[in-house]
């Protein structure tokens, strides 16, 4: 069990956040860059001393500014994965891993380091220098090194961001396994909601130095507590003014048009809807369908992502729709094409502003 509480000023940022992570649990600190996520990791590791705060891990107190306790990083058993991996360039892969193993004979250190590399599928790269390793191999060496000390806490800073798309999928499976095996609290920092959803049990959304909402990925996507959280989850966010109409709510959008929602709210709100809930129809189509919301839009961009196509749209406010590749092909979309964006009232969430 890890409990962190920190309050400190970093340049323009007022960091003031608290979070807890259970044993074998993985918490993601998600938010835009500069929000203070990495600083919170550094507080936990002892690399950054907040002006006020506490860090407790298991039964030990690593930091308590009121009681004057501040263990240096080398006395906190932390496995820290740095964003750029921070491998020692002058040491071979196995010596990098062995660096953190202490209190055993040389032969023992050597064989343990080799065992760890083998576990990460790097047995044949043990003597290679970091510069000759691929990005994915470097990450696995760094992971092996981080767990070599048998840490009581895993801290992973943007573990997937430096990898290309194909390595990411494999690496994320290895990470999930590793976190599960370690049986200790794990904290991941990421700016990518999908990555957080993939790796973590719970997500704490960080904005401007504070935790704004905590929950599972599903909870956050289904009920974002603020426009900011909705935006982070990748939802389309449109602003407007809400008023009740019957048992539904109508939001008059800024910039024209309106959206009907099954959520209830009045006054200034943000309407959120996920891109995969939005379908596109040709401009002149008059098919009614069950979608209550039909907004005239112009296509601004068409991007293929795997088997999906993300279509950037400009209506009263910018939107994004996600279609299947054949679905998009049938519409012959290109920038400038006019279309109708349709989505059901039940797909929308209203967040007060």
């Amino acid at each position, binding site marked *: 069990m890890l409990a962190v509480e920190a309050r400190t000023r970093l340049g323009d940022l007022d960091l003031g956040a608290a979070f807890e992570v259970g044993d074998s649990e993985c918490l993601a600190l998600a938010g835009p860059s500069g929000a203070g996520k990495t600083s919170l990791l550094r507080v936990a590791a002892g690399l950054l001393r907040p002006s006020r705060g506490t860090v407790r891990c298991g039964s030990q107190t690593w930091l308590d500014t009121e009681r004057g306790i501040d263990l*240096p*990083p080398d006395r906190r058993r932390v496995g820290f994965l740095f964003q750029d991996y921070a491998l020692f360039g002058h040491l071979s892969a196995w010596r990098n891993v062995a660096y953190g193993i202490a209190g055993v004979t040389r032969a023992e250190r050597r064989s343990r380091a080799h065992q760890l590399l083998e576990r990460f599928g790097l047995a044949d790269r043990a003597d290679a220098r970091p510069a000759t390793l691929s990005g994915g191999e470097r990450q696995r060496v760094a992971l092996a090194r981080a767990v*070599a*000390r048998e840490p009581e806490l895993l801290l992973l800073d943007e573990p997937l961001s430096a990898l290309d798309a194909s390595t990411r999928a494999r690496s994320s499976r290895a990470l999930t396994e590793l976190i599960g095996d370690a049986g200790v609290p794990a904290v991941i920092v990421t700016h990518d909601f999908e990555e957080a959803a993939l790796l973590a049990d719970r997500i704490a959304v960080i904005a401007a130095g504070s935790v704004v909402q905590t929950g599972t990925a599903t909870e956050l996507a289904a009920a974002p507590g603020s426009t900011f959280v909705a935006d982070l989850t990748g939802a389309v966010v449109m602003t407007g003014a809400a008023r009740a109409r019957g048992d539904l709510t109508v939001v008059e959008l800024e910039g024209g048009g309106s959206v009907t929602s099954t959520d209830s709210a009045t006054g200034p709100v943000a309407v959120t809807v996920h891109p995969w809930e939005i379908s596109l129809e040709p401009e002149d189509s008059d098919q009614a369908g069950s979608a209550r919301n039909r907004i005239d839009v112009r296509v601004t961009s068409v991007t293929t992502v795997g088997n999906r196509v993300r279509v950037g749209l400009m209506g009263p406010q910018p939107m994004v729709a996600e279609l299947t590749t054949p679905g998009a092909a049938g519409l012959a979309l290109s920038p400038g094409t006019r279309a109708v964006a349709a989505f059901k009232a039940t797909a929308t969430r209203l967040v007060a502003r």
Partner: protein
Amino acid sequence: MSRGAAFTGALVLALAVVLAFLTLPLVAIFLDVGPGDLVASLDDPGSVDALLLSVEVTAIALIVIVALGTPAAWLLATRSFPGRSVAITLVELPLVVPPAVAGIGLLAALGPQGLLGDALEQAGVELVFQTAGVVVALVFVASPFYVRQALAAFTALDPSLIEASRTLGAGDVRTFLRVALPGARAGLVAGGALAWGRALGEFGATLVFAGSLTGVTQTAPLAIYERFSADFTGALALSAVLVAASGAILLAVKPAGGSRVLGDARG
């Protein structure tokens, strides 16, 4: 001829003049007297003594500079404290002090009548007209070359390497020895070579502070000065050895591969 071509022509001419001016004296040392005469005049025991003394004192000075300069540079690179920038400026001071002034300053501080003269005498330390005095002069003038370079090399280290070492259970000392020193090795070696080159050519401060006693304080540059009116060939021979040594230092320090041209970095 276009203005662009004329400008390029002017640049080429300027570079040609600079190169000719800088290399001509060095080339002349080797061309003025035949190689046979050069080698023969090195047989002079005085010349050999001067060269050996130069090797000895510059080696000792370099050891002192590295042993004290490395931890000092690490402190300056890793800790912020009041007066840090003043300390950095003070470290660089000998770079701009004329060597003769450095010699006078050393006399005023460490000479028999100097500030610490009595204390040194009681401790039984004699520097003036002694080989140890030459080492003191060399350390004074050459240390900034090493400390500056070491400071630059340490500050250029990726801070996450230091932090990684700490999170892996290594304390301050082990991190310094196992991560910082190897990581900054190239810069430290370059700084050492520069300091050695400066010490090898040192003249003014040594002459003023330690004198020019054959076999005791007369290093190669001082021997060249003593010789050049009476035995020009001998002076040339010693000079040729120093030029060769300096050239070797420069080659050792120069990184392999060409240096970057402005704009190269833009892909």
